[in-house]
């Protein structure tokens, strides 16, 4: 395959949409630091450019190589997670690992490796096995191991994202409906057990979510202020750099988890809907690629990556609008955070590779 052909097949529309989000993110971060490229906006923009270049690079990697390496990736991810447990840094938690002065959050790429491993697993199974629950058990194990390790960090938000991302792949692989509903019931039954396992602050978050007004200044503070910021933005927002809630620091974590709120305050309902539509377009674009690729591995990988991005966006927006408890999920490509952005771009690169090297396309 010539370089030209590869370049032609790269899903540029996906890159364009990602670029728009990254640009929106840079502007929001510029505003979050009261109109300065320091400390977030500039780096965010540079990372986005590097990330997009990375997508193109990965597109050149033969997809079958990615398939071959998928279990290796999983093993590597688990090893790194193990390492985090030992040498991890973070405020009272071990989520980060420092490599050459750069902080790295291994739970992010772990999600990708789980998706790849699941896709590889299901693609190698004879089709008739897919009716029996037993053959799904290894898949659950692939999810469960990193999930448990991330919960242990503890980072419930990321762990749940990984869980849902993995389950989406399992679901797409054709998990019979009876098992879908069966596991849903099982999960519901497990909620009380899970509750006992939660840390105090995690319980507080859930309680706050259920009733934020009871504790306006404690745990409910974030969500209350977030709703005020969003609500006061109105239809067209207060204007760039004019969001009083954000500029006066009423809004916490405005550069990461609550960046959507900040955009909502400054650009209003219109700005927020625009962002939602871009995410929806990205999701649909990737799902569309999943319909077009031939191999099961490629198909499942694309669905997993597309839904992972969407789920991230959904959880984040639902969280800042008070629909879900505050779990700590970034808004992909917009929130400040290198690892998260890198993961998304690697994911897009894998999708690009899937379509570029697909047999059916030639």
């Amino acid at each position, binding site marked *: 395959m010539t370089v030209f052909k590869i370049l032609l097949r790269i899903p540029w529309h996906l890159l364009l949409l990602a670029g728009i989000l990254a640009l929106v993110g840079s502007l929001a971060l510029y505003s979050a630091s009261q109109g300065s490229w320091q400390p977030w906006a500039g780096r965010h923009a540079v990372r986005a450019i590097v990330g997009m270049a990375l997508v193109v690079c990965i597109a050149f990697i033969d997809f079958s190589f990615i398939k071959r390496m998928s279990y290796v990736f999983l093993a590597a991810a688990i090893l790194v997670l193990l390492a985090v447990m030992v040498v991890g840094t973070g405020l009272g938690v071990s989520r980060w690992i420092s490599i050459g002065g750069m902080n790295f959050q291994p739970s992010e790429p772990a999600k990708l490796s789980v998706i790849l491993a699941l896709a590889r697993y299901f693609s190698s199974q004879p*089709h008739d096995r897919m009716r029996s629950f037993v053959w799904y058990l290894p898949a659950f194990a692939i999810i469960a191991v990193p999930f448990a390790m991330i919960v242990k960090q503890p980072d419930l938000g990321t762990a749940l994202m990984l869980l849902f991302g993995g389950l989406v792949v399992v679901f*797409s692989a054709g998990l019979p409906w009876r098992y879908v509903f069966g596991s849903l019931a099982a999960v519901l039954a497990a909620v009380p057990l899970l509750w006992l396992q939660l840390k105090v602050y995690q319980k507080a978050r859930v309680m706050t979510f259920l009733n934020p007004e009871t504790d306006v200044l404690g745990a409910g503070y974030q969500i209350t202020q977030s709703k005020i910021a969003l609500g006061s933005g109105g239809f067209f927002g207060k204007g760039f750099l004019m969001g009083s809630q954000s500029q006066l*620091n009423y809004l916490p974590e405005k550069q990461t988890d609550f960046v959507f709120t900040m955009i909502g305050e400054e650009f209003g309902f219109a700005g927020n809907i625009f962002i*939602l539509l871009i995410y929806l377009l990205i999701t649909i674009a990737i*799902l569309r690629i999943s319909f077009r690729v031939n191999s099961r591995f490629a198909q499942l990988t694309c669905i997993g990556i597309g839904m992972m991005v969407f789920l991230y966006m959904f959880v984040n927006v639902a969280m800042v609008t008070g629909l879900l408890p505050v779990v700590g999920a970034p808004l992909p490509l917009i929130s400040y955070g290198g690892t998260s952005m890198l993961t998304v771009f690697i994911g897009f690169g894998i999708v690009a590779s899937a379509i570029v090297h697909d047999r059916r396309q030639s």
Partner: protein
Amino acid sequence: MFRAKTKDLRRTMSRRGLLLAGGSALLTSFLGARLFQLQVAQNNRYQRLSDRNQFDVRIVAPTRGRLFDRKMRLLAGNAESFELYVTPLYVDDLQQTLAALGQIIELTERDIKAVLLAARKGPSFRDIIVRNDLSQRELARLAVRSPLFGGVSFGKSLRRIYPQGALACHITGYVSPVTAREIERNQSLEKTPYLGTGKVGVEFAHEIYLRGLPGRERIEVNAKGQSIRVLRDVDAMSGKDLQLSIDVGVQLQAAEILRRGQLTPVELGSLQVQRALAKDSDLQAHIALGDNLILQDAKDRLVPPESGAVVVMDIHSGEVISLVSAPMFDPNLFTGTLLTRDWRRLNSHPRTPLLNRATSGQYAPGSTFKMVVGLAAIEAGVISKNTQFNCSGDMELGNATFHCWRKGGHGMMNIISALEQSCDVFIYKVALKTGIRKIKDMAHRLGLGDLTGIDLPGEKQGIIPSHEWKLASQGRVWTPGETVVSSIGQGYVLATPVQLAVMTARIANGKQAVTPRLVKSSGDAAPDFAPLDVDPYALAIIREGMFEVMNGGLGTARNYDLDKSLGGMAGKTGTVQVKRITKAQREEGIVNNIDRPWAERDHALFVAYAPVKRPRYAISVVVEHGGSGSSTAAPVARDILTQLMQKQG
């Protein structure tokens, strides 16, 4: 078979992919709906919440105008005061913190409750005032322990102070926090609840002038309650300073001379005095008010300082140079939170220190009223300078006998000698011939029976009785006997010390109906008073009589004249019976004043002007239950005028 299954699975996967795509679209529109709800439907509500977050509207209290005496010495000023604030956001356990603070500074149950209430109501980043007026000691104690108290901070504001303490209390009055009743009358005060308002005295009379106008600022606060910037909407306008006519130096002398009277100060520390104090609740009440002057009377009994009033005024400008009412109180007690303990002490004090006797104390003027009768009679042509009547010591009228103070009588008297010796019978006879109507008319022209208009609230107008007054107030007709009693300033007649000073000033001035005022006039322009409209010839005779009181061989105050080098003075004594002397007592011989209980002793009065030749000052002195006007009140006036004239050089 196999291919069919593969196709089957592919279809399943595609179906599931479509399902996920549809699900994504559904979830996205769900989010969109939520955003619509927050940002469009409920926008108003959140906009309001956001504004409340962002801005803290604060009323900026204006700096209250200061009060100065005539020589620009501070009577009322503003001192820095420290308050303690707490920011609930930074306090883990507010209740516990307040309890701990209560161990260090004085905090009432009510203070704590108010803070807790404010913390529940307002945003947690807003500072709540815990205590104002922290003393230096409390400040020091808090400062040392401040690391233990997160979220506790200090604020600075202005607090009214009266550097002269009690000295000018009845002139300045005091400022204290706005009361609920004031807010009821003036809604705008509600927004400035911490603003002090004048309650009595000049602080009240000139409240609007002194207060200034509050400003308003909006403070943009960030989430931590730190102000980012302050938007001044309206600047506060400071109140204007006011220069009073009072001379603090004279005031100080006057207060001391009045309070000491004819008594001798004692050493408080001595065992004997302490023992006596322990038994005497009246003395204890004095000590409790912070007054450590205890004296000894002629019978070696320990007594509190004299109570009464002194008013010194300029007879040309009407400016009040000194206005003393004793006992006094410390107006600084009122500026912050008045302690119940202090309030109880002030109210249960046997001699009502809060009463301004100079303007609100009504006394029978006694013999000082004789000038009014004399002026009315001469002006009416009833008597002339030389008209004589005999004083045999008493006068029969109907079946009543009216006595002269001097048992054997004064013999032949004219108006001048009658004033000099304060003969009652002469005045009785003149009054009967003149009639109460003309006496009353003269009294009003001299400023009695009406408010003088001095700029102090709560002034009393006294009583100048007449036919109409008695009919209206008692429903009975006036009797000649009442004219007789009124002529010597007893019976129904009542006047305030400031009215007596005005009366004396008008007699001395002769041309203008001088009115008193406490604000120093700017420039030398003499104020425009109404003409006095009293026969100058009559005035000259009366002034001669007042001169003889000090100088005549039998003058009632001949021993207490102002030194001739200072120009001398002309005056009139007054000794007012508080308790009626019964016939039986008179026959037994009157019990000496000093042997009666304090509350039954005569009031001692004295009015005078000085210098005699070119009068400048008028003074009135009332010593409550002080005994005789000549021996108790006259020397007080003399000593005060001596101090005043000496200062004038």
